[in-house]
């Protein structure tokens, strides 16, 4: 297995979607390839960072601008 194939199947590996023999080949490659270990870890970190910057804890809920509230409420009764 080459690094190119490792990256190609990485998401399936992390999702547990690889078959037993494919998984073994995959894990065999990791043991000998520090670049792919780093790639796997930083790929995971990328997913985690994307998720964490947008979670409610990380994000102060913005106020609803008053003009937006009024626009929504008046659009509910367009004839008024």
């Amino acid at each position, binding site marked *: 297995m*080459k*690094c*190119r*194939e490792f*990256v190609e199947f*990485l*998401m399936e590996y992390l999702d547990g979607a690889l078959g037993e023999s494919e998984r073994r080949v995959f894990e065999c490659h990791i043991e000998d390839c*520090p*670049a*792919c270990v*780093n*790639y796997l*870890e*930083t*790929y995971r*970190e*990328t*997913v985690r*960072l*994307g*998720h964490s*910057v*947008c*979670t*409610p804890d*990380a*994000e102060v*809920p*913005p*106020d*609803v*601008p008053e003009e*937006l*509230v009024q*626009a*929504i*409420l008046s*659009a*509910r009764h367009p004839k008024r």
Partner: protein
Amino acid sequence: MTLEATPAPSEQKLLERLLAGEEQAYEELVRSYGGRMLAVARRFLPVEEDARDAVQDAFLSAFRSIHRFEGNARLSTWLHRIVVNAALMKLRTRRRHPEQSIDDLLPGYLEDGHFERPASPWRTDGLDPAEEHELRELVLRSIHSLPEGHRNVLLLRDIEGLDTEEAADLLQISPGAVKTRLHRARQALRELLEPHLRERSAS
């Protein structure tokens, strides 16, 4: 992700008042959930006016279909799906700008299949609050610089927490295409973050 309102009004009570057509209840719904809905819309639509339009469309759509809301889902989850859908609809009506191909953002390989530039470890923990803020801005900026078709899949799956089938349905593409685009979008985002996070660990 759901839109946990702060403070959450009693959803059931609010729902009953909405169904009874109580005017004040509509305003409460907008004030309780509008902020989080705007945050979701802004992730898909960086132009503020577009994001606000999407939130307005979402609420009007929710008002029209409130009687079809099924009590087995959370009101917040239901509103979340509606605003995501409104944001995607808004994107479809906008003129598309030429953008970078995703291929330019994927890792490069040598002829023998090894990386052109092997990945290095990152350090993203132990940051002070200013660095945390900087990192958050960097991640958001990098997500926004992904090509739209890939960015939307990444937002739906990794940020908004939809599953593959739901994302495929909303984007009108196959579940296989969602998986392929998600993996490419994550790789591209990783490439965009790498130079910044490598620098951090070297300093």
